[in-house]
């Protein structure tokens, strides 16, 4: 019982950490945020800025209870070529329980100084999660819907320490962004082989020119697109058999008041996939965060 209460507190902490920061004041710095939830483009966080993001995923589950998984991201632009990010994950399985499911620490490194026809970014992530993690931030290997049907008390007994790498390729042309991510993951807890996955996305703002007045409903503030992601098997059984795949519409609304809202209804493309995933997110950018903390730590003024 004490353990369950502890886990609940962890989940509440995930939500609270995000919301407290999201609601606090900060200087204006609206970014043109991407609408993708799974796919990454090649744009990094502006140097010195902290972006706090909260996301939810509602998923249907055959052979088990539907779930609501959520995570908070703290994304920091260390330099113009390096972004580092910490995630805290949690989930509620309806008719079961609410639990904290782990953390992730990711780093993205821009490989080329200037823009090119295709722009590569190297992504490296360490994650320590339980088997009850359901945020589906990426799909890899032979991840299938049935993996998520176990009750929380059983699923959280599994502990995963994963090293995940991605090659992010992206290009923006005439307002369109096209991004492709190749995923390779190694679970360090046992003899699990390297697993592979992919994510692709395309998006475009509704308007390419900015209007002269500050406005919330201007067309250039809305970005629409689609993303598709799924597993590609593992080292010993590479390919599509026994893998799950999803197709999702994505939309972002960049508000001039520093907020970005995202919505993404997604659908499973085969019998191994959850039938429906509804994702939404809210984020806010805190510019000058690094300089403020640096001053606080006694750095140069």
């Amino acid at each position, binding site marked *: 019982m004490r353990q369950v209460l502890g886990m609940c507190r962890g989940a509440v902490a995930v939500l609270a950490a995000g919301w407290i920061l999201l609601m606090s004041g900060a200087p204006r710095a609206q970014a043109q945020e991407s609408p993708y939830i799974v796919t990454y483009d090649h744009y990094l966080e502006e140097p010195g800025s902290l972006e706090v993001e909260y996301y939810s995923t509602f998923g249907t589950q055959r052979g088990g209870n539907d779930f609501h998984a959520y995570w908070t991201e703290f994304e920091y632009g260390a330099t113009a070529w390096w972004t580092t990010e910490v995630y805290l994950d949690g989930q509620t399985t309806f008719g079961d329980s609410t639990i904290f499911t782990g953390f992730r620490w990711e780093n993205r490194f821009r490989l080329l100084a200037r823009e090119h026809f295709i722009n590569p970014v190297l992504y490296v992530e360490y994650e320590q999660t339980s088997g009850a993690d359901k945020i589906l931030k990426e799909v890899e290997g032979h991840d299938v819907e049935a993996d998520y049907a176990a009750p929380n008390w059983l699923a959280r007994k599994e502990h995963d320490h994963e090293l995940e790498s991605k090659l992010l390729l992206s290009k923006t042309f005439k307002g369109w962004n096209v991004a492709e991510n190749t995923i390779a993951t190694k679970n360090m807890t046992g003899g699990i082989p390297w697993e592979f996955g992919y994510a692709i996305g395309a998006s475009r703002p509704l308007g390419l020119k*900015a209007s002269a007045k500050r406005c919330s409903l201007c067309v250039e503030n809305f970005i629409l697109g689609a993303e598709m992601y799924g597993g590609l098997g593992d080292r010993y059984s590479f390919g599509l058999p026994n893998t799950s795949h999803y197709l999702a519409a994505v939309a972002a609304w960049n508000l001039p008041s520093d907020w970005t809202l995202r919505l993404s209804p997604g659908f499973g493309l085969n019998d191994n996939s959850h039938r429906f995933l509804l994702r939404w997110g809210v984020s806010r950018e805190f510019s000058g965060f690094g300089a403020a903390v640096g001053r606080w730590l006694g750095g140069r003024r």
Partner: protein
Amino acid sequence: MRAGKLACIVAFAVLICGLGQAQGPMPAKGASVHDRSIYEELTKAPKKAARRINPLQRDPEAVAAGAKLFDLHCAECHGELAEGGKKAPSLRAPEVQQAAPGTLFWLLTNGVVRRGMPVWSKLPEPQRWQLVSYIKSLTPAENPAQSQP
């Protein structure tokens, strides 16, 4: 569990290093003196890029829209009046004001990643041209000293 603790320690160390980087020795250099090397990147624009003409130069709303975009994306580092700040140089400096619109567009698109300026190709092309229109509309600093904060 040990791996987790180790990851936490490394993450914390990296975050602290990152915060140090964010104060960045490079951008601060631009604010302390009128250092021409800050503007050297402008000379690296390919001729073809520099020759590009601003398609919005006759758009009556381009400067106002560019001003809005500047406030949203650029003022944090370059200062509200583009006079330069601790993190980025003045855009009223002669080097910038005498640069061709195509050169400024090229610089916005590619950023100066090693010196802390991100790439801005995430803004659609018309918005980058609107920013160029605004920057070119600024009153140039009469001498380098005036381009400092």
